[in-house]
């Protein structure tokens, strides 16, 4: 494999990491409040707003049911508005983020629903406001679940990022398609796949390690 190709692989890896990292961070920042709201806004819950909950749920489901490759093409005008251009790696972050938000929101909603209702009751009995309950009880208690959810989201985003070549986004997936497939370079394809496998393994391992660190529910270091 030529030095040139190795250089391209390194570049593509960085581009993939860049797209996934930015999309995951923005997705989490926007997805977290949506997820919290979805978890707390059914009738009779902390922020009871059943109608808004319903509408938001439908929007989230609709976004999640559009295949990613179609989403990428469908929101090109929006991408141009946000990123100034509709092609390139930075532009590709827009559809990735749009796909990440509802996904992360649902994962966070699930993690928060797992929190024991007794804790919410205890906090209410202390005179906590709904916002205090969310900040001091729900999010800290759901953190192990949120961490695992974010790990899953990042792994999925690495997969999605392979499709953004369709709008001129670069990265490992794009490199694999253009060189490995279209130019019949099986060694490039093999390298791309290996790097992706290593990336996913790394993300999963780090995610699980953090989740274990923040999880205080089981006694630690017993007999270990």
């Amino acid at each position, binding site marked *: 494999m030529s030095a040139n190709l190795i250089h391209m692989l390194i570049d593509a890896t960085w581009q993939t990491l860049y797209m996934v990292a930015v999309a995951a961070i923005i997705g989490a920042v926007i997805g977290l409040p949506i997820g919290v709201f979805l978890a707390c806004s059914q009738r009779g819950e902390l922020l009871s707003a059943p109608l808004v909950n319903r509408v938001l749920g439908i929007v989230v489901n609709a976004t999640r049911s559009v295949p990613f490759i179609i989403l990428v093409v469908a929101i090109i005008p929006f991408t141009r508005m946000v990123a100034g251009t509709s092609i390139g790696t930075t532009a590709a972050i827009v559809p990735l983020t749009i796909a990440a938000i509802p996904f992360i929101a649902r994962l966070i909603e699930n993690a928060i629903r797992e929190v024991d209702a007794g804790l919410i009751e205890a906090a209410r009995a202390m*005179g*906590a406001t709904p916002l205090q309950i969310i900040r001091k009880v729900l999010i800290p208690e759901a953190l192990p679940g949120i961490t695992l959810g974010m790990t899953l989201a990042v792994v999925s985003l690495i997969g999605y990022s392979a499709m953004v070549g369709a709008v001129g986004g670069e990265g490992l997936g794009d490199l694999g398609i253009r060189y490995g497939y279209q130019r019949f370079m099986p060694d490039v394809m093999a390298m791309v796949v290996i790097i992706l496998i290593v990336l996913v393994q790394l993300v999963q391992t780090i995610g699980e390690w953090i989740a274990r660190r923040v999880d*205080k529910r089981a006694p630690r270091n017993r007999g270990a």
Partner: protein
Amino acid sequence: MQRETSAGAAILFDDVGKTYPQKGAGSVMALEGISLEVPAGAITGIIGRSGAGKSTLMRMVNGLEKPTSGRITVGGRDVGAAHGAALREIRREVGMIFQHFNLLSSRTVLENVALPMEIAGVPRGQIRTRASDLVARVGLEKLANRYPAELSGGQKQRVGIARALATEPKVLLSDEATSALDPETTQTVLKLLADINRDLGLTVLLITHEMAVVRDIASHMAVIDGGRIVEAGETYDIFTTPQHPTTRSFLSGVTGVTLPRFIAEQMVTERPEGPAREVIRITFLGDKATDPLLAQMSAALGLDVNILAGAIEEIGPRPFGNLLISVPADRGAEARSYLETHQQRTEVLGYVR
């Protein structure tokens, strides 16, 4: 009469009712016509079976549930009418402990105790010292930096108690706080509650389905059944002269004075023809509980007295005895009048041949 005594009440239920709307039509009654004074500075126990409504009753004290009729006042403030900031203000003056502890698994013992103060906006430095003091108060200073998952049930409930005291409440609610604990741990937790009540002059309202809990620490009690209070008053009076069948059935489990089965099975309520024996329950009160009264009666009346079951117990510092005896049926009235002239309460349970 209610006006006069309500000054000493920390919590006042005034004709409180609660119904839940049901799917379709109608509603389910959970509580009805509840009027109760919870005296300030005392420990009051509410006892009832599961589903009797006791939990709903307690949750109305800090506004976790709203009454559908009537009024609940805590320290003179109407809880049912309070909303938002006013309600949260009342809640900070009412601590609560729970059957399943409800501690945050993500926080250490110290941090759990700090939570109510963080919520109330107490300055950081103050939180730190007060939380440490409280953790020491419940005897957990060595475990201050452990997480709840590393503690036993009794230790968790101690954390719960320390947390409930964090905002210096005037009232402490205990929702089946010892029901998930073994008997020995129950005793230590109850003792802690009694100590706190004595040292801080805190009003304690506890609900339980165990009569022993009420006997051990509550000076006042109420019995709730089917959403109504069937009996209320001082624990001593209710234990010694229970009026309602529900109270009696709770008591039979704790006082250890049930008839042996071979007698209970052949006992009849009407006096049969021919020779028979009358079964009498005697309740020995106060100082007389330790007098050898039966021996004296036997000698004075020349009666043969058969003791079927009995026990002497203490409620607070006051002893009382419960004794089941049988005497010849034709001399039953004579025996009862002898006992009553000696200030004992008697009750005819039935007759056996």
